[in-house]
């Protein structure tokens, strides 16, 4: 139930959604999305073996791939925990961000997702909650996409 409403909410926010059965299928979808682009990839358990081209300078990366720690259906939001294998740059510097979300991690509400994050002990140095691509309405309320963060956001739901 909440997986469907999560997907619907993501689409309403302009986020692309892919639904796959397992990690093997996820790997194939991610490989296809990335192609030959220079990529920043977080350590994602079970998703190793992706043969991707790293950028020389992280600021030149074209795509970033991370995994959500938790997600909220009502907000269409994912929570990314920043740690040694998952730096902040992955979700921030490239113009396209791909987030892998395991279906079991999807909560119904934003509050439940926040509760998941708040229960982490010790709290991670950084958590980024993402709901849609980077945007700005500062010039006469005209919506601009990809202001400073990614212009394109793809969520791959696994399971």
């Amino acid at each position, binding site marked *: 139930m909440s997986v469907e409403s999560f997907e619907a909410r993501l689409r309403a926010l302009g986020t692309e959604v892919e639904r796959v059965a397992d990690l093997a299928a996820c790997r194939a979808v991610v490989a296809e999305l990335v192609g030959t682009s220079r990529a920043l990839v977080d350590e994602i358990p079970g998703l190793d073996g992706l043969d991707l081209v790293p950028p020389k300078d992280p600021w030149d990366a074209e795509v970033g791939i991370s995994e959500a720690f938790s997600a909220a259906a009502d907000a269409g939001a994912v929570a990314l925990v920043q740690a040694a294998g998952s730096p902040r740059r992955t979700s921030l510097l490239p113009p396209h961000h791909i987030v892998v979300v395991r279906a079991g991690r999807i909560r119904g509400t934003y509050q*439940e997702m926040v509760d998941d994050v708040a229960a982490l002990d010790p709290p991670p140095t950084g958590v*980024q909650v*993402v709901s849609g*691509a980077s945007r700005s309405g500062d*010039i006469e*309320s005209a919506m601009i996409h990809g202001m*400073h963060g990614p212009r394109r956001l793809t969520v791959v739901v696994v399971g």
Partner: protein
Amino acid sequence: MSTGTTAKGEEPRSTAMRGVARVTRGHPVWSGSDLDPGQRPALRPMTAEAVAREGVGHTRQRLEVLGRERASGNWLPWESELRDRGAAIRRETLRDLDGYLSRLAAQLESRGVIVHRVSSAAQAREAVGRIATDHGVTLVAKSKSMATEEIGLTAHLTTLGIDVVETDLGEYIAQVAGERPSHIVGPALHMSRQDVTDLFSQLNGDPLPPDPDVLASYARERLRADFKAAQMGICGVNFAAADTGTLVVVSNEGNVDMVASQPDLLVAVMPVEKVIPRLADIGTLVPLLCTAANKEFTTAYQTLLSGARRPGEIDGPAEFHCVIFDNGRTALLGTPEEEILACIRCGNCQFSCPVFRTLGGGHAYGTTYGGPVGAVLSPLLGEATRDRDLPFLCSLCGACADACPVKIPLDDLLVAGRATYEAEQPRGVESFGWTLWSRFWSTPALYRATRSAARIAGRLIPAGVLGRLPVVRLWASGRTVPDVSHAGDRPRGRSGSSGGSPEGEDR
């Protein structure tokens, strides 16, 4: 992370502010970012200039639309529930503000954050200035923060020879124009697409097309160079969770994450009331803030910061400071005015306010915070001796209180602020006049005498002249002098009254 675009050994300087000397600044002194706190012009000429300003009509129209869209004061059932919970959390915080602050500071310190608790605005900006100079910082990338506006941080760092660049698009536009933000959430709301085009074209030295995407790309490329080169980031704080020591910042553009993760040094600046009891409370407060501010359930990003970089991490700040300042706030605890400390800075009261909209935004309040929240808060900040007349920029319509997501009785506070102002005034001609009036109208004989005097005066002196008499003139500016030649007559019904005065009568 601070490799920058500059050659080795050279101090990094702002790319985004290059060409700013080419920008001709025609804005009035009271909208400028260099307006000294407490040095604003008198309310009357300042507001008169604001309503007569070129282009204000268009700004007003935009604000009307935004006001209708957002600040209707009608809350859907789920929003009302959120509002109840949010209002309760903010009051719970205020009941033990000092306790929560101590817990917050202890938690932050246990995660390696260097906490500076200071009293005044001057101490707050000096604390940040010292951190910057100690590290030899020459370029600071900053995300939007009203608290840093309040303490005059950018001006202070600039006098220390440091380049400070605002990275939120609206705030960058305001900075290039040399203006203060005109709205808490939309700093450049007072500007049209064409205004921004003209501004960026001057900055560029070559014309740019009036296309928001092109203008935003122009800003993006320039600001990206500064994100990359900055040695220090400065961010504000929306909520600071006492239980986990987590600072929460909401944004849509992604600049907060840049500022808080790419430079090696980070300073978060917050006034005391940003503390909340538990991190879990953002489950209520973030959707409430975003719904009120922007009619969206959440912003694109919520950035949670809980300490400096740990071993193995390759970005995030290596050194993390948090400056917590008071600037007159804790003195409000236990008074009716403490209510304003519940504010979560959504800006909804500003959209809802007919005075704010008519003035074309918050500049003509001459202070950091404009609109209803500003008219209540500004007079209470600092030593509480300035801007005491701001509560008069209010029509007492009460729309702000309905629009407030945390149910601050803004209208009551505005009335109270007026009473305080009056009580503080030296007893002059006006109060002498009122004393005399109450003396006369307390007995029937004297009341009748004043009535006859008014009738005679009304017949002898034409109303146009009456309005120009010394004392009356003061009172009559902004008011219509009534026809007094029939003073005291029983009303004869609306249509029966003939011979209206040349000055016009109340509608």
